[in-house]
């Protein structure tokens, strides 16, 4: 569904992605882990054209991702995104955040969008909070609204950019729980995360990125419990035993 073929990108003279080749099949959950500055978020942001890439190709459902082309809007509807900092629209209620895209981008009627929006908010455990504005919600609740907003576009896949990194520790679980339920429903997901436990439990495959290259990739349990590459081992040791 998502294919990356030798993707390269530099910020000026500094290369961030040095030839990434990977793919995400329909219904698959792929987690991207790696140290900060390894290019994980940049890679994710290239997939839906929030950033441009310099070389190689990214394809979504066979269509090339080109952020300068009008087709990027269709790609973004197919591949939705959830941000580290939620990025909810603060001037709109939870429900309005969710129905904004369906109404104004997809042209659904308000009644139809609202009915589905309420269902989606209930699905992420926020029934009854439809009229709340983002500042009145906890970080975990805001992130779940953001997931509902992504789902409202009926995407083929969702990109998650460190979705729990900005949350208080006790709120991480509620967001990961929603994501696990999504995975079990068969949603295609590409997740940049530091939650190794989530990757081990939920992901089909894990990519370990370091210095702009994929150092190791494979089935989640194998990579996370018996990493082959010393850099993967070193990274996991530091993440799992910070002291």
């Amino acid at each position: 569904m998502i294919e990356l073929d030798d993707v390269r990108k530099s910020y000026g003279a500094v290369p961030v992605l040095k030839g990434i080749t990977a793919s995400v099949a329909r219904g698959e959950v792929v987690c991207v882990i790696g140290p900060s500055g390894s290019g994980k978020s940049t890679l994710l942001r290239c997939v839906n054209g929030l950033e441009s890439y310099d070389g190689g190709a990214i394809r979504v459902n066979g269509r090339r991702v080109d952020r300068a082309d009008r087709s990027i809007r269709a790609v973004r509807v197919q591949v939705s995104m959830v941000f580290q900092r939620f990025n909810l629209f603060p001037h709109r209620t939870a429900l309005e955040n969710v129905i904004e895209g369906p109404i104004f981008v997809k042209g659904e009627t308000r009644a139809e969008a609202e009915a589905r929006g309420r269902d989606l908010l209930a699905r992420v455990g926020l029934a009854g909070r439809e009229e709340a504005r983002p500042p009145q919600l906890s970080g975990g609740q805001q992130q779940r609204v953001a997931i509902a907003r992504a789902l409202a576009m009926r995407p083929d896949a969702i990109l998650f950019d460190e979705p729990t990194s900005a949350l208080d520790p006790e709120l991480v679980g509620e967001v990961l729980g929603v994501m696990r339920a999504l995975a079990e429903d068969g949603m295609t997901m590409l997740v940049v995360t530091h939650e190794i436990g989530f990757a081990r439990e939920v992901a089909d495959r894990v990519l370990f990125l370091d210095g702009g290259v994929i150092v190791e990739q494979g089935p989640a349990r194998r990579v996370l419990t018996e990493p082959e590459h010393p850099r993967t081992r070193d990274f996991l040791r530091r993440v799992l035993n910070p002291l």
Partner: protein
Amino acid sequence: MQGFLADAREFVPILLQGVQLTILITVGSLVVSTLLGLVWAMMRVSGVGLLSGISATFINVIRGIPIIVQLFYIYFVLPDFGVSFTAVQAGIIGLGVAYSAYQAENFRAAIEAIDKGQIEAAQTIGMGWWLTMRRVVLPQAFRAALPPYGNVMIMMLKDSSQASTITVAELALQGKLIASATFKNTSVFTLVALMYLVLSLPLILAVRHFEKRTGRP
């Protein structure tokens, strides 16, 4: 004091005619400057080099010429090119254009203060540039722009007196005419000053209200 009250009874009705014109010029140029200012600001943030260049040049030219000279230009020079306006029209257009530069800078600052994550979130649900502006950026920028907007309204009210230089008999000019006819400078200009103050008071209160509201999280 007795004399002042008697003068007030005599002059206020005449001055109120000036007040009407003052309000007309202020409201008219407020509308013109707001619409034009929005256009300049949108051009400025459009990301299209040519548009933002035109807008930046225009804003700097307008800012660099005194309002009074712009008014003279519109009222006295444009007729030579076959474009003539009444004094009130010229006043509204001149002040409106002059202030559009300041409005544009306020609007631009408010737009650029919007978190980049908001724009990315809008793009991520498939919104194009215009939809992102209309549904996400402008509604939020509007709130940020309100306090400076209120200040511009107060300045415009006072600067509407510059239209007197092109024969618009608004409040300041009415005052000057009465004063030079009666020599009652103290009474007349005290009344004029009080009237401007009364007119700007609601605006000052509005600004304070806006500032309180935007100060809230």
